[in-house]
């Protein structure tokens, strides 16, 4: 595709030429797209890099944060509109383009509102200040005599004296320098500028409807999967069933009769096909006969082999988020000690739309269209893969299918780049369902071992929590390599990122307390389909399942109500206490110990609670379950969640996220486990990896606790944390069976019932 060079000035004038040039992409934000002359990222110390105001008063924000279906585009626009005092509808978030957006770091970790939000807010606060200065000169009144409403500045007491933002700056640049230190999530923007007092908020805190919903509901929205560029061909990748290895023979005659086949591409171990139509590419990928060499690495034979490896292998790095007193000594002096081991399986992100990217590798310039969570990370990865400077690569974000961390590893962009380079034309690659299930980097298995000791009064005096986890090996950047990179022989230079540390009982205060997270080596000589990546609330669900099940086990042994037992250890944690009491109240929690009274019928009901904190967001779940005592089937009837993430930007948007976390987590807790053996992944479609369906959706009740006096914290992931633990505790409450391994399948329940 022809590279377009539009200056910021042309954008500000809002010329019609841009619309014609970009009419392939009907999404409104793309109408503003402009390429900088160089591929360098805009300078964050220039106010104009952050936002622009058009003559009609429209504010366009050039954020590096992307919407992954979570509604942050709407919430961030609310924060900017609030700070500028313009109507919400007047703020447009330009979709991220690495040639003109600020690099605010990867969109992940529930940090978009918490970190990215204040960056945009402060830039908007500076812009408002500058606009007031301009208005002061224009209206001949001092700044402190001015007021702003709906983007119009007027003189207090003289409403006739007024001027709009559009009149003041529309079509022009601010040319103002601001402070911006640090980078990515940690960038501090104009900290010296005073932002609005939260008590004056009118737009922040309201449930503005999501801006991008209407076109998503009519087919007018351009997802990454819907991007088509002139001359575009279709590619598919052909991967071996087990571990990556070299093709020994590729029989091109097996596809030569497929109409539309353009090329069979091989580069080291990377094999793909390119065709003129998507169907021809799919057929060719299926038909292509490839023999693969014996890989140097072996797949584990089963889940037990993985757990044994996790248990017996020396860690390469030990994280110790809490280390207080001497748990070992306290355990030796305890009146009674407890120990338990919990297992969590490999799970899928399971994006409903498989990975998809379009790449145009031109000899001068490379363009990638993708739904990546980190546009700048993808730019770097593709540049390194192709051996070109980063400035030659431009990444244009288009929202993809919800990714839950999966697109921190933007594999399809690398695939598309290699195929496009091989044919010299733009190529669109979409993974097939079996590619996505089989080769997505997965949420890793975890093995959590917990020990505790109580004194003669039944007080926990020792807590020792060990989360043995794999690192996340397939992340863009940090020396790790994505799949296509591995296949063309680029070696990883790092062991991987940690799988989080929250949820190991850190929310409680015990006299002697240790939470540790040894990371077990997982980078293999050849890439395995058990490669790993951030899966929503990475590692937290397993750790919280272990720690909060364990708390229940002790409470039950002591005959204490689970809510009351937890309250004892929250100490000065007022927010934690409030969250726990709020969920208990909403759930109509009756004080008693678990298990509940034995039921005589074929089905038993139970309730369970769990509490969780992550990056200062605190939430608590109560699950109400029904267990069929003969089949072992667990039905989650209702989940109640209380949630405190500080200041709430958009209550309904937050609720939508929490509902999603709950349903996805019920699915993960009850159903989800990646099946594999030494020949490869066996969960390659939705029947071999079932997820929760409409028939099993629980009722949901959410209690939002708003804290306007606090900063806005993350809401995209934390409520995933406590769900599995609450369900496990509810199963125990119902039938007295303690499940220490997820998912909570009927077989595991029946096995447990036979033992009781």
């Amino acid at each position: 595709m022809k590279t377009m060079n539009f200056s910021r000035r042309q954008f500000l004038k809002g010329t019609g030429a841009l619309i014609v040039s970009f009419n392939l992409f009907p999404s409104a934000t793309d109408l503003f797209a402009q390429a900088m002359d160089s591929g360098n990222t805009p300078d964050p110390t220039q106010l104009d890099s952050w936002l622009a105001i058009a003559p009609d008063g429209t504010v366009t924000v050039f954020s590096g944060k992307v919407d992954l279906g979570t509604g942050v585009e709407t919430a961030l626009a609310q924060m900017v509109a609030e700070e500028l005092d313009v109507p919400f509808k007047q703020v447009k978030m330009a979709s991220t383009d690495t040639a003109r957006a600020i690099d605010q770091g990867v969109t992940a970790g529930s940090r978009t509102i918490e970190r990215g939000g204040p960056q945009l807010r402060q830039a908007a606060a500076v812009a408002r200040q500058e606009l007031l200065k301009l208005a002061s000169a224009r209206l001949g009144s001092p700044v402190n005599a001015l007021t702003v409403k709906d983007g119009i500045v007027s003189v207090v007491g003289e409403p006739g004296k007024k001027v709009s933002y559009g009149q003041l700056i529309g079509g022009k640049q601010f040319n103002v320098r601001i402070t911006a230190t640090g980078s990515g999530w940690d960038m501090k923007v104009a900290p010296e500028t005073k932002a609005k007092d939260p008590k004056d908020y009118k737009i922040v805190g309201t449930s503005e409807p999501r801006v991008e919903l209407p076109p998503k509901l009519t087919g007018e929205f351009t997802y990454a999967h819907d991007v088509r560029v002139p001359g575009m061909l279709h590619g598919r990748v052909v991967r071996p069933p087990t571990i990556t290895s070299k093709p020994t023979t590729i029989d091109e005659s097996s596809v030569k009769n497929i109409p539309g086949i353009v090329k069979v591409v091989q580069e080291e171990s990377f094999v793909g096909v390119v065709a003129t139509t998507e169907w021809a590419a799919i057929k060719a990928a299926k038909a292509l006969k490839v023999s693969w060499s014996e890989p140097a690495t072996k797949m584990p034979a089963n889940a037990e082999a993985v757990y044994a490896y996790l248990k017996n292998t020396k860690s390469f790095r030990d994280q110790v988020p809490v280390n207080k007193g001497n748990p070992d000594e306290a355990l030796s002096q305890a009146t009674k000690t407890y120990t338990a081991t919990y297992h969590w399986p490999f799970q899928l992100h399971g994006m409903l739309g498989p990975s998809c990217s379009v790449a145009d590798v031109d000899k001068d310039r490379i363009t990638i269209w993708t739904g990546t969570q980190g546009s700048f990370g993808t730019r770097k990865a593709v540049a390194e893969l192709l051996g070109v400077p980063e400035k030659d690569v431009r990444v244009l974000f288009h929202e993809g299918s919800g990714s839950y961390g999966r697109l921190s590893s933007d594999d399809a962009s690398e695939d598309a780049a290699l195929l496009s380079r091989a044919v010299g034309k733009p190529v669109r690659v979409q993974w097939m369902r079996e590619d996505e299930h089989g080769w997505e980097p997965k949420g890793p298995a975890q093995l959590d071992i917990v020990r505790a000791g109580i004194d003669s009064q039944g007080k926990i005096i020792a807590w020792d929590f060990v989360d043995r986890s794999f690192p996340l090996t397939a992340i863009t950047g940090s020396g790790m390599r994505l799949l296509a990179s591995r296949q063309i022989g680029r070696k990883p230079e790092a062991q991987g990122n940690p799988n989080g540390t929250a949820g190991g009982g850190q929310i409680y205060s015990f006299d002697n307390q240790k939470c540790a997270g040894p990371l077990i080596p997982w980078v293999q000589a050849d890439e395995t389909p058990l490669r790993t990546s951030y899966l929503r609330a990475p590692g937290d669900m397993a750790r919280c399942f272990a720690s909060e099940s364990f708390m229940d086990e002790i409470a039950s042994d002591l005959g204490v109500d689970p809510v009351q037992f937890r309250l004892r250890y929250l100490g000065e944690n007022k927010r934690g206490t409030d969250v726990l009491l709020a969920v208990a109240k909403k759930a109509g929690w009756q004080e008693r110990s678990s298990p509940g009274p034995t039921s005589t019928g074929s089905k038993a009901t139970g309730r369970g609670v769990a509490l969780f904190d992550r990056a200062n967001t605190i939430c608590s779940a109560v699950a109400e379950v029904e267990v069929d005592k003969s089949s072992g089937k667990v039905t989650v009837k209702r989940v109640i969640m209380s949630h405190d993430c500080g200041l709430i930007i958009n209550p309904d948007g937050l609720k939508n996220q929490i509902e999603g976390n709950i349903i996805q987590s019920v699915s993960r807790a009850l159903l989800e486990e990646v099946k594999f053996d030494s020949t490869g992944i066996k969960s390659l479609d939705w029947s071999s990896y079932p997820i929760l369906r409409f028939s099993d959706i629980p009722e949901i009740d959410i209690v939002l606790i708003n804290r306007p006096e606090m900063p806005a914290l993350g809401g995209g992931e934390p409520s995933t944390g406590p769900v599995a633990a609450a369900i496990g505790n509810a199963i125990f409450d119902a039938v007295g069976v303690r499940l220490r391994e997820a998912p909570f399948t009927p077989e595991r329940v029946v096995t447990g019932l036979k033992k009781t």
Partner: protein
Amino acid sequence: MARISLRVNGKTQVVDVDPETPLLYVLRNDLQLNGPKFGCGLAQCGACTVILNGNAIRSCVTLVSAVQNQPVTTLEGLGSTKKMHKIQQAFVDEQAVQCGYCINGMIMTSKALLDKNPKPNDGQIKEALAGNLCRCGTHTRILRAVKRASGQRV
């Protein structure tokens, strides 16, 4: 390759394609209708759903040659952002979307349901949507949206 006449959203169009091509790819790539989505290619998830002769079908496993001259309706055939169909509007009113990749299937399946059963109860809505997957977990809002679209209290 073969010339195939299609009746999509009330318009007759002739495409020149491999007759074995699943309808989904023809709708998306030849007719530029992006509403139906590729999710699995196995009729397991529902993202590709369109309406054929009044029934919600999976366009990812339906050969284009099998639907010649039969009325096909896609998401685009229901309404646009300028003039939304009542089901689309109900999804806005309930904010019943997260990423929205599955939503085409949810709306098209609901359309086929409501055409046959204008006032379905919760159980009937769940049954109709039993084969449609949503990974974001928007189910409770989707159920409310379908109920709202049918004019029932939510």
